[in-house]
């Protein structure tokens, strides 16, 4: 584990899939990573350092962790999603926070 001064700051993004189809955790992760990779590219993806933290397939909502400095690019990448599993849909960003506990309710 990196010493505190070298550790990069992170942000947690609470998001929800808005689509007519059901979506599993693996599919949600693939959609998210695909959207980020296509918008940011490989270099931008590595800088954003996204990690899929959790997903509730019932409410279609989940939490994504990413770098603090790249949060605006991550938000833009998710906002530009227009299709989910090949159907019309989008990813809504509900809240952004520095601690995961604030997004857990």
């Amino acid at each position, binding site marked *: 584990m990196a010493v505190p001064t070298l550790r990069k700051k992170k942000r947690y993004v609470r998001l929800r899939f*808005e*689509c007519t189809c059901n979506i599993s955790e693996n599919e949600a992760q693939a959609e998210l990573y695909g959207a980020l990779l*296509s918008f940011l590219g490989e270099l931008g993806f590595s800088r954003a350092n996204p990690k899929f933290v959790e997903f509730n397939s019932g409410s279609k909502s989940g939490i994504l962790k990413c770098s603090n400095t790249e949060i*605006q*690019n991550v*938000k*833009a990448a*998710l*906002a*530009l999603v*227009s299709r989910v599993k090949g159907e*019309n*849909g*989008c990813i*809504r*960003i509900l809240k*952004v926070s520095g601690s995961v506990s604030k997004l857990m309710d």
Partner: protein
Amino acid sequence: MPEYYDLGVRFWEDGLEKYANSLGFKSICSFSKEGNGMEIRAQKLEDLKLGTTGKIILLSSQNPELLKKACRRDVDMLLFERFLPDVGLVRVAAENKKPFEIPVSVLLERKGAERALLMSRISFFLKICNKYRADFILTSGATNKFFMKSPPELVAIGEALGLSHDQAVKSISIIPEYILER
């Protein structure tokens, strides 16, 4: 905290305003029959004969000369669909205080290289707008609910297009408010 407006919705359904409020918008403008806006797609000079409708008028065209002429008429917003860096058009729009609409839906409808090239064009167009102090409004341009974006999402897309945070916020709050109050 600023109040946000989406002046570029292209559809209408029951409960749309409530849905927009839940996203964080104070008000929206819908360019549909039931809405409070009217979009005119101008192809020739005769299309610029505008009546008084009491609605917000958006003039969209691919022809910069038509848009220049429209700047001197009773038009509230302009949409240059090609987003080419026409300095003459931007200067005339700035002199007449006519803002350009930048609908995000044009990006949503495209993928890959096509989207990237359009982003580059829009980004350069916005740079010229900033240089000549022409106003612009970021809108969703939504044709369905999934295409509607919340204010933070529009700001994030604006920043991805090269705007500063303040410029992006202004383009969805102060400038649309001014249009609605006219």
